[in-house]
């Protein structure tokens, strides 16, 4: 029987990861109108890039930055090469396309690093910190720190920078933004890059804990999506809240009830939300389903 406080701490860290992925979902959806099935795989790309860099003896923190950059590039390519061309197609097509992108990314990674999970050293060396009778691995602190830092950076980006304002403009109205001289296409690509960067950070910081494998993106992406649905897919604070709730539920569920069904928790929640509150727990934006 695990220490409940410890479970809460790891749940919060988990929630941080899901929050980052969820923010990517929301950004891409609000700007480009696409639900990106490959979102989790952007995180995986960062993890794989880290493994590569470390194998080439590149120092850890440089590897982290390189990994995030790799994710960003992949995000941009995916949008420009594939999704942008099909932006007039139906939702069905776009879903299937992003699924296809997802499997291409996974198989490429599998070819590059093999089928066995690879390990990555923790960012901060040392023993777990003991606080209030719980052992908190230092990586969890890294994760929580990264999440908070990312949220702050994103806030300033969206509120204070020109591109951030342009993004918000496109989210509000694509047509009017174009009238104002904002290239909706470039902004859509930018949203993909942001989504990929955020997912990349998530992938990089969780790599030391969960190991890097070609299929780590599927469940990450799904759970990030569940969190995003909490906010109706359009509300960032809602998504973050949802992510934290999901992380906590999963951690507590795995520790206290059964670890075999812990993945099922997310899916059950997903179905429940889609059934009863498809516009999100907190999202009041009436997104016409």
């Amino acid at each position: 029987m695990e220490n409940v406080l410890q479970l809460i701490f790891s749940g919060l860290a988990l929630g941080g990861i899901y929050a980052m992925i969820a923010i990517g979902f929301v950004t891409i959806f609000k700007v480009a109108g696409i639900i990106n099935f490959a979102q989790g795989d952007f995180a995986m790309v960062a993890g794989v890039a880290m493994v590569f860099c470390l194998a080439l003896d590149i120092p850890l923190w440089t590897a982290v930055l390189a990994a995030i950059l790799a994710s960003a590039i992949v995000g941009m390519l995916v949008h420009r090469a594939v999704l942008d061309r099909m932006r007039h197609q139906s939702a069905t097509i776009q879903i299937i396309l992003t699924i296809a992108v997802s499997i291409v990314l996974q198989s490429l990674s599998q070819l590059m690093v093999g089928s066995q999970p690879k390990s990555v050293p923790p960012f901060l060396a040392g023993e777990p910190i003991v606080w209030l009778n719980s052992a908190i691995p230092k990586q969890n602190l890294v994760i929580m720190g990264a999440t908070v830092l990312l949220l702050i950076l994103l806030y300033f980006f969206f509120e204070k920078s020109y591109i951030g304002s342009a993004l918000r403009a496109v989210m509000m109205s694509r047509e009017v933004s174009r009238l104002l001289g904002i290239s909706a296409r470039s902004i859509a690509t930018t949203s993909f890059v942001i989504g990929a960067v955020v997912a990349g950070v998530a992938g990089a910081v969780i790599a030391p804990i969960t190991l890097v494998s070609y299929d780590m993106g599927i469940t990450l992406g799904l759970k990030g999506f569940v969190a995003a649905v909490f906010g109706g897919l359009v509300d960032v604070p809602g998504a973050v809240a949802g992510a934290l709730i999901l992380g906590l539920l999963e951690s507590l569920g795995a520790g206290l009830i059964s670890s075999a069904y812990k993945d099922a928790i997310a899916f059950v929640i997903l179905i429940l939300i889609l059934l009863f509150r498809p516009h999100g727990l907190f999202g009041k934006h009436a997104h016409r389903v």
Partner: protein
Amino acid sequence: MKGLRIRKHVWGWTALFLVVMCLPLVTGTLWTQILLLVGLYAICTLGLSVLIGYAGLVSLAQAAFWGIGAYVSAFLAIRTGMSPILSVLISIGVASGVAFGLGWMTRNLEGHYLTLATLGAGMIIHIIFNEESWLTGGPSGMYGIPQLSVGAWVVDSDREMFYLVWILLFLLLWLTRNLVRSPWGQILQAMRDSQVAAASMGVDVSKYKVQAFMFSGALAALSGSLYAHYMTFVSPELFGFKQSIEFLLMAVIGGALAITGPIWGALLLTGLKEVLRIVLPLVGITSVGPVETLAFGILLVAAIMFLPGGLASVLPRRGIGRRRWNRHAVIDGQQRQ
């Protein structure tokens, strides 16, 4: 004129049927087995094609229903010793029930939301396959599944199974063809093009959605149970997300709107798998799996971007089906400029 047209398409179907029936006589054991599997996949894919192409519901849970068919039939046949034919029928009933549940739960959902809900449901079912060992034998699977039999006659040769599967498939194709051209099918298509518009015309969207899911689930279960009795062994990894994607691929690449689409899709994918399996080691690539998946992924992207009508839209018509394929047609049937 009308008489001529009807005769033409019947010729096409008959020709295809006869060609297929003659195949086991000319192919060796390996290809009979492969084509048999193609037939089984095609049955499952047919259900998915109707769901995607005609009802406009992209489901990622098809492999889960395939698995329900397999496991229920296997379980009943082993534990209760009942005749496999009966267990197959019961498994179809169970899968239809689950499909009813899924259809009902997603009755208010559309597009992305619906697809993701099916994904979640499929994964939950897959986890159940893995965890409930007392029911399914867990990760190590279930073996010793009895082969199909009617009384004393056991279907124990590949050829017999081949004929069984393909005759069934053709019957189902004919049934489906009539179904989608019936008022039921028209309503499904109306629902696909716009749920709101259909509802405003008085269509009970929930009811038809549920029925579409049940149809798809029933076909999947039929295929899955036959598969189980043929292979005599099943394990959970056969019924996960990856397999659902493969069924999706078969439906889309073959052509979701064409009745014969599932055949081409299943044929291409299974054929491609076999070819890769044989060719890749020859060029020094030992890990066939990822290359296969990569090929499928690229194939899917290419198919959607350049051939939205699927293979069926480019193969010679020979009078099978009457749809004209607009170059810009997308798989959900909407014609754009």
